């Protein structure tokens, strides 16, 4: 099936699967746009608890940015045929993704410790829910990375069109959820 699809669509500038992924990203973006505009509307209504965002969220931004860099270098190594770098950087991305999730959890714990529990005030609740939904998207990305690792470690390193496409889809999604976090964090920083 794969080969047929590639042949059938060879007239296109962009592969339909990649295009579909961008459309899906637009849809996810709308969901977070809804959350952030809800925060603006709700904040304007008053009774808004002011608190300082835990530093761990900022530190975690470095983790997720680093993971984007490692995944990109893994992709470049995959194309060049450098198997060790390809596998190593992919595994590094996977662990950085897990680290991000663990540190986000720590961030929520810190929030609770400073007295902003999930149900204290909507201002805090929004941070939990919005970063939680983002973490769910990271978790989905980690799942995709697991599949990518199975390919990297179990199959011989060959740069076929299908494998390149698959990697590019993974890469796009991972960069997207990274960007999403930066958008959310700058939003929180400006409003809280």
């Amino acid at each position: 099936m794969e080969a047929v699809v590639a042949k059938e669509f060879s007239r296109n500038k962009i592969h339909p699967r990649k295009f579909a992924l961008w459309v899906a990203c637009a849809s996810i973006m709308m969901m977070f746009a809804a959350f952030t505009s809800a925060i603006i509307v709700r904040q304007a209504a008053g009774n808004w608890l002011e608190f300082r965002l835990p530093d761990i969220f900022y530190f975690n931004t470095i983790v997720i940015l680093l993971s984007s860099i490692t995944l990109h270098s893994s992709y470049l190594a995959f194309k060049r045929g450098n198997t060790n770098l390809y596998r190593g950087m992919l595994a590094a991305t996977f662990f950085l993704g897990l680290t991000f999730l663990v540190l986000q959890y720590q961030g929520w714990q810190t929030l609770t410790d400073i007295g902003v529990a999930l149900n204290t005030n909507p201002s805090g609740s929004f941070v939990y829910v919005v970063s939680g939904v983002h973490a769910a998207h990271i978790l989905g990305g980690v799942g995709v990375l697991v599949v990518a690792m199975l390919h990297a470690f179990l199959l011989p390193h060959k740069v076929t069109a299908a494998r390149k496409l698959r990697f590019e889809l993974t890469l796009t999604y991972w960069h997207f959820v990274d960007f999403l976090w930066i958008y959310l964090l700058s939003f929180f920083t400006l409003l809280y």
Partner: protein
Amino acid sequence: MANTAIKPVVTEEELLIEEYGYDDHFHEHHHGDKYQSNFITTYIFSQDHKIIAKQFLITGMFWAIIGALMSLVFRLQLGFPEENMAWLRPVLGKWITINDAGMGSLAPEFYYALVTMHGTILVFFVLTAGLSGTFSNLLIPLQIGARDMASPFLNMLSYWFFFLAGMIMFFSLFLSTGPFAGGWTAYPPLSALPQASSGSGAGMTLWILSLVFFVVSVLLGGINYITTVLNLRTKGMTMWRLPLTIWAFFVTAILGLLSFPVLVSGFLLLMFDRSMGTSFYLSEIFTGGQALDNVGGSPILYQHLFWFLGHPEVYIIILPAMGLVSEVLSVHSRKPIFGYKAMVYSILAIGFLSFIVWAHHMFMSGVNPFISNFFVIFTLIIAVPSAVKVFNWIATVYGGNIRFTAASLFAIGFVSMFISGGLTGIFLGNSAIDIQLHDTYFVVAHFHIVMGVAAFFGMFAGIYNWFPKMFGRFMNETLGKLHFWGTMIGAYAVFWPMHYLGMAGVPRRYYRFDSFEAFGQFSAMNQFITIAAIITFAFQVIFVVNFFYSIWKGKKMTTLNPWGATTLEWTTPINPGHGNWPGKIPTVQRWAYDYGKDGKEFISQVKPLEEGESETH
């Protein structure tokens, strides 16, 4: 000669495809047979867009019947509140309470559940999934010249998520506490507090779960529709050569993709309010004599998130109907659609405007009146592209050589309904008049005519017109016409009087009116509406019987192109297999509406321009 015996007539279009078609070597691989090899992969977990379209249609019909039966029960309550309803006890069980005198009456909380479920089912399951799910799946690949959707697998998932959503909602109907009963919009606090009413507990949990799966279905479908239209058009099929059906499905999919995620955001916050003790939508509520400790929430926030989907949703419902009607009117008037580009631009304009009018559903919720002005203006501006479309439909039919088939009658009926219901929208879009009219039967009449009945008419026009493409047989025309006249007259008889009720201030969603002095005088009108609703429902039974009878016993299709249409779906075999075209895929040489050009009745899109023929129409 043996060949000609099997296939007596090779049409001109087939020869043209053979000559000019694009050979993608599709049939040299055996994947087609691989994924349609047994009953389960062919009819149940099918990845073929034509089968998925039929699955959406028949599931939608199932839900339409359930939803309509519910409306009959609450119409009986409204028209005949004093009548004995004990005969419904075998079906509704404990929701019919019987007093000492043997009088059965509908439990008030179940009345609300019926109204809520009727709305949810019709808006989401029938007019979103059943309409755009069916025809986007059937027509997008066939009319743009594609083998299938961009991702047949996601397309299959889209149907099965819809099916799962339906199963959950169906299950909720049988809960001992009843399904959700707080209105199809599920406003908090009724939806946010499990103790608020009997349906707000398990009923609401299943409602929200069902709708989340439904949104997944819409998104998977929408991603596919958009990608397919933009990436899989055949050679020569430029955007300006697309039939208006495809433009409508395309914009519908974009609307769904941008608005449904916002609903999910709203639902997620609602779930946290329900089960995690947050206060996004709840503030200072007393229930059961106790003060809840939720502080700081705003139910208006939910309304904003809900209607940011809710308003585009009504265009998600009506745009596919508009597309189908444009195509059917043009084909059956034997005339090109009038003002093709204006039609496309008005679809785009309606799509854009639909995102900046949502607060007209909230004029009376305490939003700032100055902000309301903004929404009034954009709401009224929607009348402009809508009027452009109506003008163009009438101009298309005007002077045409009209064939009064069931399909074209329903398409003409759509235009009538859209005008009647659209005009009352101009009343309701004004925030000042809305003070009197909001939450009355005027609103009920408006949206039922303009997006309920009109969308159904578009759907019926589509079903009668493309039934031969779906099943290789025709539906019975006489029964179809009977169905049309019964539905046309019946629908007006049901919804026209509601305008008068609404102008008199009769509120919607009330269980009975006879104890209100101001509204009791309308009991005869309510009886009339109920009787008209029952008769109209009877005419829908004719349609259902005609539909299923014709699948197996209808008149067989003997020619490829029974309506003399120009579009690509009629160049496929009578029963197109996987991949739609047996050989090459057609390339497109001209736009979709060459009817009556240069003295020819119609010219197929696969036919190249003749020497000296200009492409302008």
